[in-house]
């Protein structure tokens, strides 16, 4: 047992202090190295991941056209105008393109009701010359289909149809960027010697390019785009935030500022919200399926972006609420006192002092929620996102989003699809970065207006 004086001597012992000090610094050094190693490891994993994805986005591709464009046109398709493109379709498609007209009508209500109706009734939103509009489908002659194509299709659509249905473009194989660089000889060899690759063309290709963003999906990987999925993602996220932000912040304000937390019901709500943040997202999908897709079908129109966004809003609500509550709690009491002291009501205090001061924190929570929602796949699969959407989505249409498209294309065994999946991953990351950057700028703007 140390007496008072020996305890004091121990504290004042110079020799032990010097030895001990070296030891204390050393221990600090070791921990610092450990932290550095952890960061390095993380960076390495991130770089590997990014390399793996980006490696697939750019590289050599072997493409073959069953019927090269040169056999029916002496100019490249990009240079042809609408009537020339329509002419090619009529000349090259079997039955003069009547099948294409029929195929593009299948599934539409008017066509299902009466297949014998005149075309002017079947083809909606397009003005046809009277003589053509009066014909039924069965009466169509090639010169009529030419008129229909010119009026009803965009040149871009016709070009795509020519490539998929007439040219029969096919991706034979594509190589990653590293393979293309370091294994070029073997690739050339393979293209030259593979027996049924006759007429294959080898080209450098970036799978993530501008037309990938703007074109529709097709069955040929090299011509397919993510336009519908990109628009679907943006619409979904927009609607999700529009729904979840006011609801979440409102709930947080109530729980933090108005509820005393004494009532058992209020405590139950608080506890539940915290637990909900940890519920697997697929459960939210099941909930969304039961409520939004099925029970509220009248409002949401079923498997639409509205249903998806409402489901996502449920999913990110706990994140927003918890973060907003945290932000509100962090507002110093002195600010509330100042406001009340000036004769503010409760609501004025919350709305004019507390909320602005908490805004940066609330936005941080919203960013977290948004980032989660934009990458979620499971709940959307459950509520029934489509795999193939050719047209631009609207709020009440069937839809697909970027992660769903990544999922679909990754498991597609056809050549070229894992490459467009990789391109979509890069696109998703870019969208995510843009969102976060915007939100961070917004947050800084708020913060600057708050502090000096």
């Amino acid at each position, binding site marked *: 047992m140390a007496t008072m004086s020996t305890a004091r001597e121990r504290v004042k012992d110079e020799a032990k202090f010097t030895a001990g000090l070296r030891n204390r610094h050393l221990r600090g050094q070791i921990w610092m190295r450990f932290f550095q190693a952890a960061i390095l490891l993380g960076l390495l994993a991130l770089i590997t991941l990014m390399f793996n994805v980006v490696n697939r986005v750019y590289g050599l591709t072997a493409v073959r056209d069953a019927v090269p464009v040169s056999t029916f046109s002496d100019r490249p398709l990009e240079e042809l105008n609408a009537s020339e493109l329509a002419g090619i379709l009529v000349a090259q498609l079997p039955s003069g393109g009547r099948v294409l007209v029929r195929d593009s009508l299948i599934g539409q209500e008017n066509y299902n009701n009466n297949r014998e109706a005149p075309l002017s009734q079947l083809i909606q939103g397009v003005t046809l010359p009277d003589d053509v509009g009066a014909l039924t489908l069965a009466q169509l002659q090639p010169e009529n289909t030419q008129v229909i194509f010119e009026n009803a299709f965009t040149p871009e659509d016709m070009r795509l149809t020519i490539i998929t249905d007439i040219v029969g473009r096919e991706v034979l194989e594509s190589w990653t960027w590293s393979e293309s660089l370091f294994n070029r000889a073997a690739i050339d060899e393979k293209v030259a010697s593979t027996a049924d690759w006759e007429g294959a063309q080898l080209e450098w290709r970036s799978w993530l390019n501008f037309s990938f963003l703007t074109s529709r999906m097709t069955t040929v990987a090299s011509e397919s785009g993510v336009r519908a999925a990109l628009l679907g993602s943006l619409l979904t996220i927009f609607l999700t935030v529009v729904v979840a932000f006011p609801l979440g912040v409102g709930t947080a304000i109530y729980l933090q500022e108005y509820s*005393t937390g004494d009532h058992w019901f209020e405590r139950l709500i608080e506890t539940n919200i915290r637990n909900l943040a940890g519920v697997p997202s697929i459960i939210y999908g099941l909930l969304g399926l039961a409520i939004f897709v099925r029970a509220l079908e009248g409002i949401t129109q079923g498997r639409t972006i509205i249903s998806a966004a409402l489901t996502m809003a449920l999913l990110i609500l706990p994140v927003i609420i918890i973060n907003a509550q945290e932000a509100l709690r962090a507002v*110093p009491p*002195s*600010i*509330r*006192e*100042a*406001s*009340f*002291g*000036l*004769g*503010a*009501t409760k609501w*004025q205090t919350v709305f*004019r*002092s507390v909320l*602005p*001061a908490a805004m940066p924190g609330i936005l941080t929570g919203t960013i977290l929620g948004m980032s989660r929602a934009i990458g979620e796949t499971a709940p959307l699969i459950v509520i029934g996102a489509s795999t193939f959407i050719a047209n631009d989505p609207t709020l009440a249409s069937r839809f697909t989003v970027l992660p769903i498209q990544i999922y679909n294309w990754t498991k597609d065994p056809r050549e070229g699809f894992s490459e467009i999946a990789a391109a979509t991953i890069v696109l998703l990351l870019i969208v995510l970065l843009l969102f976060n950057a915007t939100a961070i700028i917004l947050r800084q703007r708020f913060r600057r*207006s*708050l*502090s*000096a």
Partner: protein
Amino acid sequence: MTSMTLGSGATAIDLKHVKVFYSDKLAVDDVSIPIYKNKITAFIGPSGCGKSTVLRAINRMNDLIPGARVEGEINYHGKNLYGKEVDPVEVRRRIGMVFQKPNPFPKSIYDNVAYGPRLLGVTDKRTLDEIVERSIKGSFLWDEVKGDLKKSGLALSGGQQQRLCIARTIAIEPDVILMDEPCSALDPIATQAIEELMKELVKSYTIVIVTHNMQQAQRVSDFTAFYSIRKAEETGGQERRWGVLGEFAPTEQLFSNPKSEETERYIRGEFG
């Protein structure tokens, strides 16, 4: 300094047998004092004796503390502030408060001062401009900030922040201003500025100030209330402490000729 004696002059606020409890624990017992109109009343006393508690009871700031309860009457224009029909929001609009630690809003200087008038529904830019300028001039801060009212209130020095808080308070034209140790975070020069400001403000407002500084109480106040602590042994060896009013008198009289020995010991710095 005034030569006024107790009982003369109009009272702005009358405290009658005021008791304050925190969660049923008695904090201040039986305080009865008048607060005279257009005078400065100082609250002095040892730490924990309940000066802030009484001050906060006057504009019902204690309502914000869960479990706080006030007994007795605080009469303002003959009306009990704790009466059933009284809205605390209205009380605080007429009886403003300046806190110990300067607490400007994280907003611009302009928005800080315009906060109160805006609460009252003033939106007209010209009116607001006028109120802001008059209030900041009224708190002797104008020359230091007039060029940059867009600057954040938090970017000012401590003394400037406190004067901003005073400007913010006088912007709503209260009757009474309560100040809880407004100079405790300030240096002597800033303190002097605030003291001079108080002497100016008292021409149009009634002021109550809590201070630990005897000289300050003597320099600025007309009346002084001295609070002291009572202790009692509880069952179980625990000690119970609560504050009581020790003495209330014109400042000159209280400092030169204190009635109780306890007051005398405290003002001579011999307390506890």
